[in-house]
C-alpha cells in the first residue's frame, strides 16, 4: 500500500509539472501583458524597463523554472492587474466556487436520482419519455445560454431572484459563505441551477440505465414474487444497487464542475476562481493564469488519486495488480 501511495503521489506531481509546462508554452501566445499595463502616454523606454523588471525578456524555459521554483515554496507572485498576492486572490475566490459547485452537486443528486428512477420504472409512459426528451435539451444547450435564459425569466420578468453577484456573505475564518444570509441563498439559486442542469441530466440518465439493468435481475423478481411492496423494491433494494457508479461519477465530476463554473461565474458575475481566470486571460495576467491552472489541475489530481486510493482500499486486487 505504501508503494502504491508513493507511486500515485509521484504521478500526481508529474502531472502538475507537465500542466505548468504546457501553461507556460501557451502563455507565449496569449499576448503581451505590458501593452495592457501601460497607458497611451507611456514611452517605449518605460515599457522596456517594465518588461525587463518583470523578467518577461527571459526565455520560456527560464520563466518556467523560476515559476516552479517559487511555486514549490508556495509563492505564486503578485497579480499584474490587481497588484495583490495571487495566493490570497485565489484563496478569496475559492470558497465562492466551492460553494457553488457543492450546491450544484447536491442539487444534481437530489433531482437527478428520483428522475432517473421514475423514468426507469415508468418506461414508455408519456411523462417519462418527455422527461427523457427534455434531458437531451439539458445536455445540449450551452451553459451560458441557460444562464441568460434563467436571468431573463426569473430576474427580469418575474423578479424573484437576483441576476448577479453573491449577496451578503458571512466570514468564518478564511472561508466565506452565502448560505447563512437570505440574500446569499437567493443569489445561489440561479447559478447553481444553471451549473447543475448538465449534471442533473447526466445523473438521471445514468440512474435510469442502471435501474433498467437492476430491475431485470433475479433478486428484484424474487422480491416482487414474495410480495414486497413495489416502492420498497424500487427505492430501497434496486436503487441501492445503482448508486455505486453514480457516486463515483459525481466525485470525479466535481473537478469538471469547477472547470465548467468558469462560464456560469462569468454570466452571473459570481466572484469565484473562474471569473478571476477569465479576467486574468483578458489582461494577460500571467501569474494568476499560471496559479489557477496549477490549482485546478491539483484539484483534479487529488480527486483522481482519492478515487484510486478508495478503490484500492475496497478492492485488494487493484493493490496487487498495480502496486
Amino acid at each position, binding site marked *: 500500500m505504501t508503494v502504491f501511495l508513493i507511486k500515485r503521489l509521484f504521478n500526481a506531481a508529474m502531472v502538475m509539472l507537465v500542466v505548468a509546462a504546457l501553461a507556460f508554452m501557451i502563455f507565449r501566445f496569449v499576448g503581451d501583458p505590458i501593452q495592457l499595463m501601460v497607458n497611451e502616454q507611456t514611452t517605449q523606454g518605460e515599457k522596456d524597463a517594465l518588461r525587463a523588471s518583470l523578467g518577461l525578456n527571459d526565455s520560456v524555459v527560464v520563466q518556467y523554472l523560476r515559476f516552479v521554483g517559487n511555486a514549490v515554496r508556495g509563492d505564486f507572485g503578485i497579480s499584474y492587474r490587481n497588484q495583490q498576492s495571487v495566493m490570497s486572490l485565489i484563496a478569496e475566490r475559492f470558497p465562492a466556487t466551492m460553494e457553488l459547485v457543492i450546491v450544484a452537486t447536491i442539487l444534481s443528486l437530489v433531482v437527478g436520482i428520483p428522475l432517473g428512477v421514475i423514468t426507469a420504472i415508468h418506461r414508455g409512459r408519456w411523462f417519462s419519455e418527455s422527461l427523457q426528451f427534455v434531458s437531451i435539451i439539458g445536455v445540449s444547450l450551452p451553459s451560458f445560454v441557460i444562464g441568460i435564459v434563467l436571468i431573463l425569466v426569473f430576474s427580469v420578468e418575474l423578479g424573484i431572484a437576483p441576476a448577479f453577484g453573491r449577496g451578503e456573505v458571512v466570514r468564518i475564518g478564511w472561508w466565506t459563505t452565502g448560505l447563512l444570509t437570505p440574500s446569499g441563498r437567493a443569489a445561489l439559486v440561479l447559478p447553481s441551477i444553471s451549473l447543475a442542469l448538465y449534471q442533473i441530466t447526466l445523473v438521471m440518465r445514468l440512474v435510469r440505465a442502471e435501474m433498467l439493468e437492476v430491475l431485470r435481475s433475479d433478486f428484484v423478481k424474487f422480491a416482487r414474487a414474495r410480495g414486497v411492496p413495489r416502492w420498497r423494491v424500487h427505492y430501497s433494494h434496486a436503487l441501492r444497487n445503482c448508486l455505486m457508479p453514480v457516486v463515483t461519477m459525481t466525485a470525479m465530476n466535481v473537478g469538471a464542475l469547477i472547470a465548467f463554473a468558469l462560464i456560469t461565474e462569468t454570466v452571473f*458575475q459570481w466572484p469565484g476562481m473562474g471569473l478571476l481566470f477569465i479576467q486574468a486571460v483578458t489582461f494577460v495576467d500571467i501569474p494568476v493564469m499560471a496559479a489557477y491552472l496549477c490549482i485546478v489541475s491539483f484539484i483534479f489530481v487529488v480527486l483522481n488519486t482519492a478515487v484510486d486510493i478508495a478503490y484500492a482500499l475496497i478492492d485488494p486486487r487493484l493493490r496487487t495488480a498495480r502496486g
Partner: protein
Amino acid sequence: MNLRTTLLAGAAMVAMTSAVSAETLRWGAARDINSLDPYSYGSTFTISFLNHVYEGLVRYNADLTIEPALATSWETMPGNIWRFHLREGVKFHDGADFTADDVVASLTRVSDESSPLRGNLPAYKSATKVDDHTVDIAVDGTYPLLLNDLTNIHMFDAGWLKANGAEMPTDVAKKVEGYATFHTNGTGPFSLESRVPDSKTVLVVNPNWWDTPKHNLDRIEFTPIASAATRTAALLAGEIDFTEAAPIQDLPRLEGAPGVKVLASSELRTLMFGFNERPKLADGRNNPFADKRVREAVAAGIDLDAIHKKVMRGQSRIAGTVVAPAIPGYSEDLDTPTPYDPDAAAKTIKDAGAEGFAFTLVCANDAYVNEEGVCNAMVSMMTRIGLKPTLDIGPNAIQQVKQSSGEADMFDLGWANEPMLDSYSILLQVFKTKSDNAGVFNWGGWSYPEIDKLLDASAVEMDRDARLKMENEALRLVKENVIMIPIHQQPMAWGLSDKVDSVLQLSDNKARHWMTTMKAAN
C-alpha cells in the same frame, strides 16, 4: 394660520426630510477597478472611479475645462517652476490636514522609478515645499500641459503613507503587496466603506468635504458585471440604478423598457485606420501604401455613412479628423470626411498599379465598440475598389503585438487623448517620428519632419492659443497626407433607472457621481 398652510408646511417638512434621507446609487460597471491605489497600472477607468475618493490639485469642470480643486491658484515662475497655492482647511478622511507635505509626498511617490503611472507626469522634475500651503513644482523645460497632467494625479496624505510603509508605489516585480492597494485615505466627496474585488465596493458620503456637494447621495454601491447581457438584465430588473456601459446592441430594448433611461452620445475616442508606410512590407514586397494616392483612394472607398448606419446603428459620430471636437487642437474645418466615391477610388488604385494588391488588415475584437463589424465592413469596401484585403482578427492582447511590430499592413487604432485631453497626446505618440520618448504608436513607421517641427515648437509654447494653432496645423498635415483615416467617434451609452434624477455625462465617458442627484425615496 389656517389649516391649509399648516398642511403645506407639513408637506414641505416631509419633502425636506426625504431629500436628506439615505440615497444609495447602485452602480453596475462593465469591469472592476484594478486596485484602490490610484498609482497602479494606468487604467483610465480605475483612476476615474478613485476620483470619488481622491482628488488632484486641479480638476475638470462640467465644460471639460480645468478648474481649481485642492489648489486654489497657481503661477509660473522663472526657471520652469510652477507655484501652487493650496486650499486651506481641507481634511483627509482620517482627519489629517491637507498641506504642502502631502503634495510633495504624493508627487515623489507617483514619479518614482518603479511607479506604473510615471508616464502620466512626463515633464515632472521635483517638488519643494515653500510653506504649509504653497508648493513649487519644477518641470523639465518649458511645459504647457502640467495642469492637464495634474488632473489625474491624486493626492495622498504624507503621514498616512509613512505610517503604513506605502511611500513607494507598489512594484509588481518585487512581489510585495502595497498597503494602498487595500486601503484609502483621500480628500474626496466619498470615502471607502468596504471592498470585495470583483464583487462589491461601497463608498459613503464624506460629510466634511471641502466643496459644496451638488449631489444628494449617501452611498455608492459599485458592482462589476462583466457580462453585457447580465448587465442589461440587472438594469431591467431594477437591481442597479446606473451603468456607464449600456451595451449598444441592447439600447432599443432598454429605451423601450419602463423605468429605464438611456443617455447616449459619442465619446472622445476616435477610431481610425492606419497603414504601414515603409517602402517594403514585412514580407519583403513593395508597399503600395507608401504611395499617398493609394491611401487617398482607400479613404474615398470607405462608405462612412454605411458604417455609421449599419454597423454602429446610428450611434457613432462620423469623423473627418483624428480628434474629437472636445479635444483642444480640433477645428471644424478639418472635420470633413472624404466624400465616398468608390469608382474614382478604384480607378486611382488601378492607375497606381495597386490593383489586386493582397494585404492583411489586423484588428482586435475586444478593444473598441463593434470593432469586428467595422473591420469586416472595411474589408468588403476595400475589396470593392480592387484591393485584396484579408482580415486578421483576435484578442487585443495578441493583435497589438502584431500591430506594433510593423507586421500589420493595415491596422485599426482608437485614441481618446486620455488622460491629457489635448491633441498633443495623439500627435506625440502616434504621428511623431518614432524615437525613445515619442511615436510609441507610430506603427506604420512614418516620418513627417514638418509635423515633428511643429510639435517640438508647441511643446514649449506657453501661450495656449499659439500652441493650439500649431497642433491644429500638425493635424492638417496628418489629414493632407492621409496618415490615418478617421472613421468615427465611438458611441457611449449610460443606462439609468428612473430613481436617478440627473447625472453629468461628459464626452470623456467618466462618471462623476459628486454631480449625481437621485429622486427622494418615498
